[in-house]
């Protein structure tokens, strides 16, 4: 007999784990037992709720009250006041960053209010380690329908009607990809799931796996039926231990219930899934490199064609779909392709999950309909820029993407529209940058990353990105010459055209897009030998401007090496011998007084 009156949905994603949700969970359990509430109030550890910036977070249901930044020491008060006496604890409510207004109910918080949950419909509601929770939310009914009522061709048609495109970045129509693989001759075929998320600032695939692993398995089962595959692999990077653990649990449960293995649901169809752990190489997200890696070889791409739909893993017809793509499949089959395509734009249907990070108030994971303006995403959902600083640019699509300046913020979230302004949808990493970001330094950061991650197989990528990095370092160091800009542009175009795989073909994008919108910053570095955002150490003097200094001493308090000399009511002074040029004083000074 279920005597539970209240459920506490405590976030157990990687983000909240790292801010202490496990300790909060244990303390809650103890305290509830102590107050005699253990039998009527249940703690449910869910996957990532999405609002990572204010974690650990907890939702009290059915009241809908949302608590943020919980700590172990808050628990006794919380249990006594709210759960025993019915007085919710106001100081733990969410506070709007701009108005400081307290918002008790989760659905009133702007971060959640603008979202439309489809891919992440189960996040924060189900316990990802309990298969029955997933089934309660229509789980495995899509697979059951596909296996018992539909032919492979009907499944593919439904996927085509839905308009779902690959959420890993390139946006290839999913139904068409499956169609190619299903028509390829062969008895042995494979379904692969790409969980090798490597973009800096992207964590949506990890969160989906942690919050709703069965949705990904179900998507793979349906894909397997569509192309008649018998074996599937999930390629997950080993840096995602919690996601892998939950996937392992999910696979074991699905096998026990008979959703995986031989003769699924008595239909005669057999399919099995195995996890393959990758070592976390960016290039292994590229489909041909990923397949090589599963084969046990070094993860390097090969030329296409032949495309994997004809010759993929072990030369057999193979489809590779991203985690987010697969998480949508079961619902499309259950509710129909028309239902899915009812929202979105002409060419981009459904919703997209974004990981918002950087200089923005609400860091976290959000799902919005395609066609939402970037401005809404950053200001309404993301809550705008902290510390009253000005917005400078938003980086979309990771190292393969580009940055978008403020005057283009009304661009809609749509594969084509975003490509028009020089970025890509990518896997959905959104890095917001305020005025203190140096765009040349930003391009240098991404090029450094690409340079590390290039597999080295083809010369344009291996050597070209190294030369790009050297040029950018030269400019950041104040040794830049005007002709460097021309070389950067020319080299970028060559790398794009001559590289073998997507990594190299998109590697120069951070350089090209910063040159397109922020060329004046390159000029400032080269001609004036100045870094407008005060980020490039070699171009800074580390001197205090006595006119601008308000004698507040913030720089003095922040300096880790005691290099700043300051007394009350006196202008600060920087001792160059002790200074390690760490930039702490620059970030702390509110008056722009350090040069």
């Amino acid at each position: 007999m279920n005597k539970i009156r209240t459920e506490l949905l405590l976030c157990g994603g990687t983000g909240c784990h790292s801010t202490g949700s496990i300790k909060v969970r244990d303390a809650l359990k103890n305290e509830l037992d102590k107050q005699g509430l253990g039998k009527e109030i249940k703690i449910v550890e869910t996957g990532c709720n999405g609002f990572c910036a204010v974690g650990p977070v907890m939702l009290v249901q059915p009241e809908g009250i949302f608590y943020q930044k919980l700590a172990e020491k808050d628990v006794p008060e919380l249990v006594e006041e709210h759960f025993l006496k019915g007085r919710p604890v106001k100081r733990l409510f969410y506070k709007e960053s701009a108005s400081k207004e307290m918002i008790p109910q989760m659905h009133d918080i702007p971060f959640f209010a603008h979202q439309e949950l489809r891919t992440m419909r189960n996040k924060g509601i189900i316990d990802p380690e309990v298969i029955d929770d997933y089934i309660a939310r229509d789980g495995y009914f899509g697979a059951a329908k596909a296996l018992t009522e539909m032919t492979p061709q009907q499944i593919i048609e439904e996927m085509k009607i839905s308009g779902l495109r690959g959420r890993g970045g390139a946006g290839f129509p999913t139904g068409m990809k499956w169609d190619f693989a299903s028509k390829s001759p062969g008895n042995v075929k494979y379904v692969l799931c790409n969980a090798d998320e490597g973009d800096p600032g992207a964590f949506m695939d990890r969160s989906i796996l942690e919050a709703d692993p069965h949705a990904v398995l179900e998507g793979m089962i349906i894909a397997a039926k569509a192309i008649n595959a018998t074996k599937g692999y999930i390629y997950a990077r080993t840096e995602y231990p919690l996601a892998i653990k939950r996937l392992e649990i999910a696979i074991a449960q699905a096998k026990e219930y008979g959703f995986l293995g031989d003769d699924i649901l008595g239909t005669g169809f057999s399919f099995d899934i195995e996890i393959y752990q990758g070592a976390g190489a960016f290039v292994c997200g590229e489909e041909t490199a990923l397949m090589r890696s599963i084969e046990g070889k070094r993860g390097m791409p090969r030329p296409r064609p032949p495309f994997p739909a004809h010759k993929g893993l072990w030369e057999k017809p193979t489809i590779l779909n991203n985690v987010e793509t697969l998480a949508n499949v079961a619902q499309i089959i259950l509710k129909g392709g028309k239902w899915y395509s009812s929202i979105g734009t002409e060419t981009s249907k459904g919703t997209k999950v974004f990981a918002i990070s950087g200089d923005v108030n609400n860091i976290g994971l959000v799902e919005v309909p395609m066609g939402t303006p970037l401005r809404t995403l950053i200001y309404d959902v993301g809550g705008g820029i902290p510390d009253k600083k000005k917005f400078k640019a938003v980086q979309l699509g990771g190292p393969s993407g580009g940055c978008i300046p403020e005057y283009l913020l009304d661009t809609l979230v749509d594969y084509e529209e975003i490509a028009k302004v020089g970025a890509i949808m990518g896997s959905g990493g959104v890095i917001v940058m305020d005025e203190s970001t140096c765009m040349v330094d930003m391009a240098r950061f991404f090029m450094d990353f690409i340079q590390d991650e290039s597999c080295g197989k083809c010369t344009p990528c291996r050597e070209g990105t190294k030369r790009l990095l050297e040029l950018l370092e030269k400019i950041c160091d104040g040794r830049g010459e005007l002709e460097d800009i021309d070389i950067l542009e020319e080299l970028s175009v060559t790398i794009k055209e001559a590289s073998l795989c997507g990594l190299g073909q998109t590697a120069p994008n951070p350089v090209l897009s910063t040159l397109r919108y922020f060329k004046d910053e390159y000029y400032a570095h080269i001609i004036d030998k100045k870094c407008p955002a005060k980020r490039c150490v070699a171009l800074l003097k580390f001197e205090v401007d006595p006119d601008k200094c308000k004698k507040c001493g913030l720089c003095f308090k922040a300096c880790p090496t005691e290099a700043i000399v300051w007394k009350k009511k006196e202008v600060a002074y920087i001792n160059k011998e002790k200074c390690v040029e760490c930039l702490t004083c620059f970030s702390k000074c509110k008056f722009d007084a350090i040069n």
Partner: protein
Amino acid sequence: MAKLSIQDLKKIKENAAKGISLRQEQGRIKVTVHMGTCGIAAGAREVMSTLVEEIAQADRQDIQVVASSCMGMCSSEPNVTVQVEAEEPIIYQKMTANKMRQVFKRHILLGEVQTDFALAKM
């Protein structure tokens, strides 16, 4: 475990859906037990436990139980407010486990307001 059929899957869903019903929908009926210090001292905890047991026995997922603080009528505690959708909320006073059972069976399940125990309409 034997292979599941679609019928089995439907059965699992029915049972599991009960288990997570609190997480997704607001109940059609909301029962508030006023649990200020005065309420607890007067026996509100026992009333609450009885209510939760009755709901479990009746196997109803559309009834939401909320603890709230003192209403200000400490002399009439334990107080319980029953709010059926689209009807006026009724406040009951000086509740006990037995009275709670009666209110649950007659008012909440059958819709007959138990005026004898009522303090006020809200």
